């Protein structure tokens, strides 16, 4: 069924004083005015706030907004024993940063990475919650390995830990589990390694779970349609980013229009999460633009197999812009459904 969803993170604060609770609380925590338990309670409260906002904006499969995550690496690696977190590095071509994990000894499965977060969100949400993890390949690629014999062994160990997490999430009631693997689009030549790691990861996937592989920070040129053979239910990617221009930007960086070309040449034989809303620019898509994109997609994929989303997590936007963009997307989908009923 045609579904409105999101990718990963949601802006942690907004412009009003109430929406800045988390920022204030971190300040209070640093000054030792509140303790860790209180800070955790506030993270719960803000998670509840952003869950509510996504639902109000018409999102039908939400995430917990990753309010507890500092970045896509630190939160997970910080929970896996054997990793040490080091200096800040730029996250792809964004103005955000992550602490680079170093594996200096055997990595241990902590027995729960995001399960508790999922349970919390799922219990308070009136719509389904998608669990989101950084994929094993990207976790390995953006970390440093000082313990395992080679990169493959390192990534395989991470695939096992994330595989166990998938089983735990399924037991906790998760129906949708997404893995973000942006690093693949920067190291496309490693597709054979990626396939090996993913075959291993998929061997853990329980029956009846919708698994999603989301790819952004680049385009699929050179790895599509090969990646549609991967053992995963849905493929998600950027169908919104600006086009490459002669001297400004290259196809490597700006996936949107390249991905349209690739997809229209060879339709996808899987379910598709289409990132048609640009989460890296405040410029609002018009309803007309979004409707046109939806029509183009429906010529390629059946509505049954299609979800619409932004092309990235929403934290690159101010919260007000993020919410407005989601509301636009939902409105277009709602009107599309109503029009269909009338026909």
């Amino acid at each position, binding site marked *: 069924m045609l579904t409105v969803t999101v990718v990963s993170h949601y802006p942690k604060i907004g*412009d009003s004083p109430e929406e800045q609770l988390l920022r204030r609380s971190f300040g209070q925590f640093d000054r030792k005015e509140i303790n860790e338990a209180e800070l955790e309670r506030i993270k719960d409260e803000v998670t509840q706030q952003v869950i509510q906002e996504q639902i109000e904006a018409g999102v039908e499969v939400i995430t917990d907004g990753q309010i507890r995550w500092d970045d896509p690496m630190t939160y997970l690696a910080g929970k896996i024993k054997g990793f040490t977190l080091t200096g800040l590095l730029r996250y792809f071509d964004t103005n955000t940063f992550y602490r680079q994990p170093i594996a200096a000894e055997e990595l241990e499965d902590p027995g729960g990475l995001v399960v508790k977060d999922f349970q919390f969100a799922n219990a308070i949400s009136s719509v389904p919650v998608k669990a989101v993890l950084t994929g094993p390949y990207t976790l390995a690629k953006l970390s440093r390995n000082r313990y395992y014999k080679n990169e493959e062994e390192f990534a395989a160990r991470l695939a096992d830990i994330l595989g166990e997490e998938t089983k735990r999430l399924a037991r906790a009631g998760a129906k949708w589990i997404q893995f973000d693997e942006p690093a693949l689009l920067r190291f496309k030549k490693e597709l054979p390694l990626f396939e090996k790691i993913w075959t291993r990861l998929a061997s853990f996937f329980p029956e009846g779970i919708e698994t999603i592989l989301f790819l952004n920070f680049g385009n699929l040129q050179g790895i599509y349609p090969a990646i549609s053979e991967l053992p995963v239910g849905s493929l998600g990617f950027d169908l919104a980013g600006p086009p490459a221009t002669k001297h400004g930007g290259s196809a490597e960086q700006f996936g949107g229009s390249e991905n349209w070309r690739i997809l229209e040449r060879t339709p996808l034989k899987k379910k598709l999460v289409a990132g048609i809303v640009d989460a890296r*620019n*405040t410029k609002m898509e018009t309803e007309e633009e979004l409707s046109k994109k939806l029509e183009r997609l429906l010529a390629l994929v059946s509505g049954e197999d299609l979800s619409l989303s932004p092309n990235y997590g929403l934290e690159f936007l101010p919260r007000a812009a993020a919410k407005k963009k989601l509301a636009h997307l939902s409105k277009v989908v709602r009107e599309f459904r109503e029009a269909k009923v009338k026909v």
Partner: protein
Amino acid sequence: MTPSIPILPTTSVGSFPKPDYLKRARAQASRGEIKEKKLRELEERATREWIHFQEEIGIDILVDGEMYRDDMVTYFAETLKGFEISGLVRSYGNRYYRKPVVVDEIKRAKPVTVEWFQFAQHLTKKPVKGMLTGPYTIMDWSFNEYYRDRRELTLALAEVIHEEAVDLEKAGAQYIQIDEPAISVRPEELPLAIEAMKIATRGLRAKTITHICYGDFQKIYPDLLEIPVDQIDLELSNSEFDLLALFKRYPFTKEIGLGVIDVHSHVVETKDQVKERIERALDVFRPEQIYVDPDCGLKTREVQEAKDKLRVMVEATKEIRKKLEMASLNR
């Protein structure tokens, strides 16, 4: 009369930390508790203090310390026409900034930095650098709701930065620094940044400098040398001077702003550490090529830390200078 510039001139990258009284006043001003005029007085006081400090320790080319700027891109966006300022966006941890949004054609209705440049230059006989943010960086750090693409926006910004540079030169700036910290993030856009810098520096007689930091220099060097400026200022201490090996392979053909002070660390370097860094650089560069400065703006350090770091930098440079003079006398 302008004092002459010695060999291995010492300078700074741009920002200094704001003293506590100014930080407090800025917070009050943002809540509307004190008037614009009062804030301006305190910004002037802090600028005077930094100019006097730089003179006192013997820095050769001064900066105004940017007591009146918050973010290096937002400051320009607030004055130029065509920008709005967005809501808060997170960069890391609990740090947020207001990212500018281009909503209309970019125009420079009035100079952005000239008045503060004049204020600082009148306080000293030594040269003060004119400090601008480069068109590529302003583009990359803004949302674009108006121009067709990144190139069109960058080139429009290049024209207004050029106008600003020309006005700084008219106001007496002998050194104009146009910072492009974003340049090293996307190697494939270096040609665009170079194209924009050609416009920004067109016809200038002042010495032109660009500062670049945080990035994968391996990927943009030696192409980086095509940026049309006289001097490229680089962060070298933070990377343990790894770049020197690269410069041995492909000679660095411009002047270099040699970052010898780590701005991310609370630890104040020893004089010997800084001397060693300069000496290592002297293996690769001619002495006339080198300007000595910290890695980056010092605004994130405490006032005292920044002062201590600058003092060590100047003392170390003076000792190396003496050594160079002795060597040339003995030749």
